[in-house]
């Protein structure tokens, strides 16, 4: 039963990975990656990592992939298949020095990497990797359960946990700064409507109104506060 499930999941994982690489449309690549992630969660379950499998499905296949789908729908992007990349067909402006030879070289390096990894992981004949792993007995607090992971995260790996949360905060701030609209919206009439709050608030505080280019005081004059100057400086 375990072996059958393993082979089904492994085939799903590899098929999903191939789909990500060869699909012409980025949208289908994202869908293939979702399929890949769900089958990968099955493999994690077979390895008794229940909590990680649940996190994989909920966070990765759920939240992160929704972000991808949004950006693919927003940006679009023309399709391209790996076949014509490898043969150098259908390129409008080929950069100098980079050609289909580079693509073939990339494929060769990928194949060499696979061979090398296989040798490193399997060819060494380590005895421990040949077995089924450590003994396992089901229970409410045994290996892989949320209680087990939570205890490890809050005791032995507390520093890694805190650093990861700090990294997430930095990434969130960076994402907001990167995706901010810099050009501003069209001119409209209610821009001049000032509220008393605008007079109290200094410039460059990072409000949503500033983010969309709707400066509070003297919009578009370019001078004055730092926030106004930065936002209008990026106007393209």
């Amino acid at each position, binding site marked *: 039963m375990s*072996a059958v499930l*393993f082979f089904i999941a*492994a085939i799903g*994982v*590899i098929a999903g*990975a191939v789909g*990500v*690489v060869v699909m012409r449309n*980025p949208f289908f*690549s*994202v869908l293939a*990656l979702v399929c*890949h*992630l769900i089958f*990968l969660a099955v*493999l994690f379950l077979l*390895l008794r*990592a229940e909590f*990680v499998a649940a*996190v994989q499905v909920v*966070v*990765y296949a759920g*939240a992160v992939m929704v*972000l*991808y789908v949004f*950006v693919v729908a*927003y*940006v679009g*992007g023309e399709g391209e298949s790996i076949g014509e*990349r490898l043969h150098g067909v259908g390129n409008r402006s*080929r*950069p100098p020095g*980079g050609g289909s030879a580079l*693509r073939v070289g990339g*494929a060769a*390096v*990928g194949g060499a990497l*696979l061979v090398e*990894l296989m040798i490193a*992981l*399997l060819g060494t004949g380590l005895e*421990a*990797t040949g*077995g*089924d*792993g*450590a003994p*396992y007995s089901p229970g409410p607090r045994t290996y892989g359960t949320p209680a087990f992971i939570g205890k*490890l*995260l809050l005791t032995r*790996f507390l520093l890694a946990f805190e650093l*990861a949360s700090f*990294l997430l905060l930095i*990434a*969130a701030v*960076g*994402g907001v700064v*990167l995706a901010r609209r*810099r050009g501003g919206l069209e001119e409209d009439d209610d821009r001049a409507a000032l509220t008393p709050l605008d007079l109290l608030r200094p410039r460059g505080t990072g409000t949503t109104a500033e983010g969309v280019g709707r400066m509070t005081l003297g919009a578009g004059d370019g001078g004055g506060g730092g926030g106004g100057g930065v936002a209008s400086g990026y106007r*393209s």
Partner: protein
Amino acid sequence: MSIDWYLAVSAIVFSLGALGVMTRRNPLVVLLCLELMLNGANLALIAFSRMWGNGDGQILAIVVMTVAACEVCIGLGMIVALYRRRLPIDVDELRELQG
């Protein structure tokens, strides 16, 4: 199933991801292939964790997922910024940093 099989699957997934990173030119797909590589590493980590019977590999896998989420956040933000500035969504044509 023995741990070997999981390691083989993880090596295949990692190599496919590396192949995609090197051959595709849409930055969205390059990011997706980076996810593939991280997932291959995650599978190996969890297989080794199962081999030893302690949770260190699982914790590392969760941290890798966190880093992957940060990478997606910044990468997609950059792609949206590229799109807003009407730059080509193509890693071959974005060559200004090559000098």
